[in-house]
């Protein structure tokens, strides 16, 4: 990995990472991916988030859905673990709670494939500061 030699270096890097992520998230090109984040903090993992994440990765590939599944930290909804956030191209992200493999299957089939919401949505209730 190349060392970052200056703040300007860092800024350039940021731009490139950001545009990569934007491409993925904002769905600026038509063939963009579904992005799924799985909350993988201790409470999530304790509730089975790992299984859900593996299931998601395998099944989405099997079912031919272009997607990126990544892990992230605690979203704050510890009571509803495991939680996952699904972002369809061009849409607001939606968080689902109490996700097990059955629920994950339903999410893939209904929401990801058809845009139909399924039960278990966790309403987002905070503002995150963006820089």
């Amino acid at each position, binding site marked *: 990995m190349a060392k970052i030699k200056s703040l300007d270096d860092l800024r350039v890097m940021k731009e490139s990472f950001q545009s990569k992520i934007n491409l993925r998230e904002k769905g600026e090109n038509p063939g963009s991916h579904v992005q799924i984040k799985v909350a993988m903090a*201790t*409470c999530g993992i*304790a*509730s089975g988030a790992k299984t859900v994440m593996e299931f998601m990765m395998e099944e989405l590939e099997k079912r031919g859905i272009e997607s990126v599944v990544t892990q992230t930290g605690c979203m704050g*909804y*510890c*009571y*509803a*673990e495991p939680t996952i956030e699904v972002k369809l191209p061009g849409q607001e992200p939606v968080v689902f709670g109490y996700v097990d493999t059955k629920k994950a299957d339903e999410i893939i089939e209904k929401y990801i494939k058809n845009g139909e919401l399924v039960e278990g949505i966790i309403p987002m209730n905070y503002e995150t500061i963006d820089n």
Partner: protein
Amino acid sequence: MSHIKVELKQEQVAKLKEICKSFDNEAGELINVLHKTQETFGYLPAEVQEVIARELNISVAKVYGVVTFYSFFTMIPKGKHPISICTGTACYVRGAEKVLDEFKRILDVKVGETSPDGKFSLSCLRCVGACGLAPVVSVGEKIYGRVSPDGVKDILKEYE
């Protein structure tokens, strides 16, 4: 203090020395050394502490003083399936005590003890940070959430 005589094998002593060496035999690294040793041996019997004391050039009494200060360290071998009940506040207000009582009753051991067959050991810990799942019980690596006293025997059944 009850003691179970443990004879360290040559290779175990060598392993211990290797652990100490990996921390440059620094006295200040004692806690890290103890962590690594407990990870390797499962517990910290007296003989192990003696080797560590010698390698790090500190008195055995001081090593023992540190071992007995931190609740993470144990001189008693854990059971094959170590059971820990979270008694953090969130778990407490959601009934962890009753769950603990049930474990004690069924296994007939006290907290900190290992069942005679060596299968289960019972301990309490303070908050694993999974308060959303309170009360929480862990058996080995596996975490059980929202455990009720009734659920205790089902958990134990998994390890029959």
